[in-house]
């Protein structure tokens, strides 16, 4: 908690403009595929389909695939960008905020099934996981390394900046 708080302070210093800017809408806190089931007061657990995503015809693997395809910079993390709940996720967000690109995020702590789906998709065991232009780039160590050696700048340069 203290670490997250501290990193927020640091991160304000670096990119205060980003904190107040809403991130790409539907993905941020993006639990749109869950809403159909869990927010319906008339449903009961007993009546849920065995696979809750089946009813909409969208599997979590599809959700992940669509996420990384539709969002030039997609991060699956613990917590949300302005309140990361893990030092590694915090670090990754801090690095990405150096660049003027839209950042889309999902909080895997909110959904263990999504967490598994992302791991299966990337064959990578830990979080955060960062995808740029549909390509898996790695976790916080790698993104930091790419930031330091200029590779990240190169990779992000043709992504149009946020409003």
């Amino acid at each position: 908690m203290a670490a997250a708080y501290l990193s927020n302070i640091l991160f304000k210093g670096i990119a205060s403009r980003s904190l107040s800017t809403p991130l790409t809408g539907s993905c941020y806190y993006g639990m749109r595929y869950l809403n159909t089931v869990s927010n319906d007061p008339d449903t009961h657990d007993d009546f849920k389909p065995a696979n809750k995503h089946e009813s909409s015809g969208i599997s979590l693997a599809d959700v992940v695939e669509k996420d990384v395809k539709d969002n030039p910079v997609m991060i699956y993390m613990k917590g949300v960008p302005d309140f990361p709940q893990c030092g590694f996720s915090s670090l990754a967000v801090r690095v990405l905020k150096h660049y003027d690109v839209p950042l889309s995020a999902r909080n895997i702590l909110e959904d263990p099934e999504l967490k598994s789906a992302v791991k299966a998709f990337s064959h990578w065991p830990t979080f955060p996981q960062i995808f740029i232009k549909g390509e898996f780039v790695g976790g916080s160590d790698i993104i930091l390394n790419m930031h330091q050696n200029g590779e990240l700048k190169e990779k992000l340069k043709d992504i149009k900046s946020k409003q």
Partner: protein
Amino acid sequence: MASSRGASVVLSRANRIKSKLQTALEATVLELDDVSYQHAGHAAMKQNPSDNQETHFNLNIVSPKFEGQTLVKRHRMVYDLLADELSSGLHALSIVAKTPHETTTTTTASK
């Protein structure tokens, strides 16, 4: 798992990690720091407060087998070797993976 903790006959996770990596990657440098204490309070760890030991490590590894491999590949090699540990409570690994050649030519920003 929990019952094995503290038993002297069982190798610590740190030792298991080291021996797995050393054997497979023929590391010339292999430093592993247990930093679990730094993460004892965070969200995922709170769910299981009794399992706060040997969950987070910093790994500095130099191996000739990383030659020609991207960082993602190098990390995957490490993760693949530690699949058992990752599925039994190893929570996070911060990895610095270099080739012997890179350690002589690069100056690292950190330390």
